[in-house]
């Protein structure tokens, strides 16, 4: 149904795609695999008409496929869910969906259709809500529903499940299977190898912009697939050498009103974090994760005495003062929250590292120092990019994520709080990011990991709590915990399920 032949695309300093050939059959769920920056997003953007290939041809249903823009691609029957959201914050779900349509039906009818599709596919969504009030997972849902409304013949999904809960992801796969059975071809990008092994029919593997292999993912183990992607075996994670020290961070009776009508209020959250310890916080997105991180980072201030770092009260201080005190944070949304998309990496380094790294003295920016610091993050975290002058938005999703986490880790915080640290990061790089958090803890820092990925939490954390409707459960030691037990323990956290037993 869809065929690409010898596709090539260059960006300044990188060959993003080189002589890529592959095909997708109708009714097939076809996985596109590869490390961060391997060129997956670039390839599908060409199919969707967002980027023009430098060379090569594509055919769709036997017709030459050369979309000048996404509209032409949509007319040819291609739909796409993006890795990063392209939604207008100020508008409602229905308005956003109408904006993406050629001939939007009347508002009432559209809302009804949205409600219908979201019921059919088990993706709950209220068409009247404004985007700004939605969590990352819910925003992804808007994008998915937007595509499903088009009845596409080739549906492209660029990491659609990275912010969905395991349960939501299962429902999505049921949806995709139904669609495929009706003859829709599906091109699926994900870094979750287990997900691909259970649900995809075939996989094409990219490395450094070239096709290196094509296989049946069900016939290989996740480890094999990862090895094919990187071209070498992966290192197991090393949890050794950490000892819990003195109490670093104390959060008590932290209650915050919901920041917006649809946000989540925090209800007397309490936790203690010791030096050398990693505390995992699980739960479904939209249960106060963003709000908890904002309260820790200083974006939201709380009542006096609610946040103590080494005994000093930080509750009333802003982000800069907290960074100086040693409390650092990395929010979930990397484009637009953790980083300014239009700024270079050097400028984005300055965004949070100004004070601790001496990049700003008496208000003056030391630009060479900012560049050098960005370069050190790029090197230490293996960020694939031409250099610190590259704009953040030109990085592949996973590479920007590595940069954003690396920027905080390298500042040697006393306490680091991260939200979804490996969202969209490939298996190899995710292991590297997790290892860096473990190493940070080994050096005596305290780390809080907020994540929806139970495997990640089990792999990293010493103690585990669940965040549910703004309430934080008492911590339990992770030692000896099984995924099943956590599943039971999270009984209160709606929809949180075990990824794979």
């Amino acid at each position, binding site marked *: 149904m869809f065929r690409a032949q010898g596709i090539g695309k260059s960006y300044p300093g990188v060959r993003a795609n080189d002589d890529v050939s592959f095909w997708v059959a109708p009714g097939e769920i076809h996985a596109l695999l590869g490390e961060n920056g391997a060129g997956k997003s670039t390839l599908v953007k060409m199919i969707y008409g967002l980027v023009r290939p430098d060379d090569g041809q594509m055919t769709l249903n036997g017709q030459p496929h050369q979309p000048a823009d996404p509209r032409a691609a949509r007319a040819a029957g291609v739909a796409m869910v993006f890795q990063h959201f392209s939604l207008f914050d100020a508008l409602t779900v229905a308005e956003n969906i109408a904006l993406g349509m050629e001939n939007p039906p009347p508002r009432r009818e559209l809302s009804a259709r949205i409600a219908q599709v979201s019921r059919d596919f088990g993706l709950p969504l209220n068409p009247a809500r404004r985007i700004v009030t939605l969590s990352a997972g819910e925003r992804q849902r808007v994008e998915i529903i937007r595509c499903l409304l088009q009845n596409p013949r080739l549906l492209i999904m660029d990491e659609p499940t990275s912010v969905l809960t395991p349960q939501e992801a299962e429902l999505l796969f049921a949806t995709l299977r139904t669609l495929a059975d009706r003859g829709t071809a599906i091109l699926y990008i994900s870094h979750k190898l287990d997900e691909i092994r259970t649900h995809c029919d075939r996989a094409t593997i990219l490395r450094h912009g070239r096709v290196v292999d094509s296989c049946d993912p069900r016939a290989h183990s996740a480890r094999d697939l990862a090895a094919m992607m990187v071209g070498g075996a992966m290192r197991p994670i090393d949890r050794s050498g950490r000892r819990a020290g003195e109490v670093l961070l104390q959060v008590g009776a932290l209650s915050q009103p919901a920041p917006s009508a649809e946000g989540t209020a925090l209800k007397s959250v309490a936790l203690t974090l010791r030096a050398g310890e990693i505390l995992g916080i699980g739960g479904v997105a939209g249960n106060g994760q963003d709000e908890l991180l904002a309260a820790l980072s200083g974006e939201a201030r709380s009542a006096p005495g609610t946040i103590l770092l080494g005994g000093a009260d930080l509750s009333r201080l802003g982000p800069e003062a907290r960074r100086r005190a040693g409390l650092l944070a990395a929010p979930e949304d990397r484009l637009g*929250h953790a980083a300014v998309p239009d700024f270079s990496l050097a400028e984005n380094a300055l*965004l949070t590292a100004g004070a601790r790294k001496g990049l700003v003295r008496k208000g003056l920016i030391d630009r060479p120092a900012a560049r050098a610091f960005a370069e050190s993050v790029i090197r230490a975290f293996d960020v694939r990019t031409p250099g610190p002058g590259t704009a953040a938005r030109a990085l592949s999703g996973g590479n920007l994520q590595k940069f954003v986490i690396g920027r905080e880790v390298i500042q040697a915080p006393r306490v680091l709080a991260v939200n979804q640290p490996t969202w969209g990061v490939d298996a190899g790089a995710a292991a590297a990011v997790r290892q860096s958090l473990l190493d940070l803890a080994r050096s005596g820092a305290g780390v809080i990991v907020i994540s929806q990925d139970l495997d990640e939490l089990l792999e990293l954390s010493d103690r585990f709590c669940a965040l549910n409707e703004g309430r934080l459960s008492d911590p339990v030691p992770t030692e000896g915990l099984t995924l099943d037990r956590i599943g039971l323990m999270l009984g209160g956290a709606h929809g949180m399920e075990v990824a794979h037993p």
Partner: protein
Amino acid sequence: MIRLVPRTETPALLQVVTPVLAVLATMLAGGLLFAVMGYDPVAAIKTIFWDPLFGPAASYSRPQLLVKAAPLILIASGLAVGFRAGIWNIGAEGQYIIGAITGAAVALTAYPAAGMWIFPAMVIAGAAGGWAWGMIPALLRNWFGASEILVSLMLVYVAQRIAAWMAFGPMKNPEGFGFPGSRNLQQYPAAANPELIPGTGAHWGVVAAVLAVLATWFLMSRHIRGFHIRAAGAAPRAARFAGVKPETLVAFCLGLSGALAGMAGLFEVAGPAGQITDKVGVGYGFTAIIVAFLGRLHPVGILLAGLLLALTYIGGELAQLTMNLPAATVQVFQGMLLFFLLGFDLLTRYRIARRITA
């Protein structure tokens, strides 16, 4: 059919080319307009854009260039800082008027004393007046979420009423034979803002404009505050995460642009205008918005754009004198310039594509 498609990458060259294109298109459209009205288009364009600098009477008009460009550049430098952060001060005209009044108030109170302190005190008072007038929309936005666009614009009309009241009331020249308007500050040496180098038109306002260009350039490219301003304009959530308080930025940007506009008003009233009348505001505050955008919100661009718009003022007046062109010519030209700039700007963010039928 032809449609606009968002660009994925913006060619850097377009940033510089569009203002130039806009100027050329304005000349073209202006010429066309003159031709329709029955004037010789080539002569008219030459009179407006060439003669003020190189024509027979250039020795009279050339100094005017700096006189008119100084307030435009001074105001636009401040506005551009706020515009970069997405803070829209549309009321620089009002801050200019209030600055002229508070600055003049110092001089009129001191009259007839002599002293080196008088002129600097006037400059400070002018800046303070403009700053205070700019802080009104800032505080209303920070406290109640009121739109600074509307509030600052409305305050222009309030400022104009205050100027009229001053000219007819408290500031009226007691030796003015009942005519409205204050004493002429040009005739009060301690308060006057004279031409510093004869024949150039350069007064203290020109010096201040150059300093403002340098200072805002430094602020935006070297100082962390400027970095935060750019971050807030590009990604407000990321700026807040970095530690920027939006309220602080609103107050800083409106205060700064207000102070610079107020200072421009003072230099004008103590120099070229000479006195407070009900017509102190001559539109520099509005034209400066065009200057800021035409200059791409960049200090160097603003310098060039300020000179160009000053040229349209002088050339327009010249054309009115020598060719009998209507007085509205200047406004039409400035309006067209903004129109074409915004039009061509579209092309930096979108490209033109033919519709492919579905």
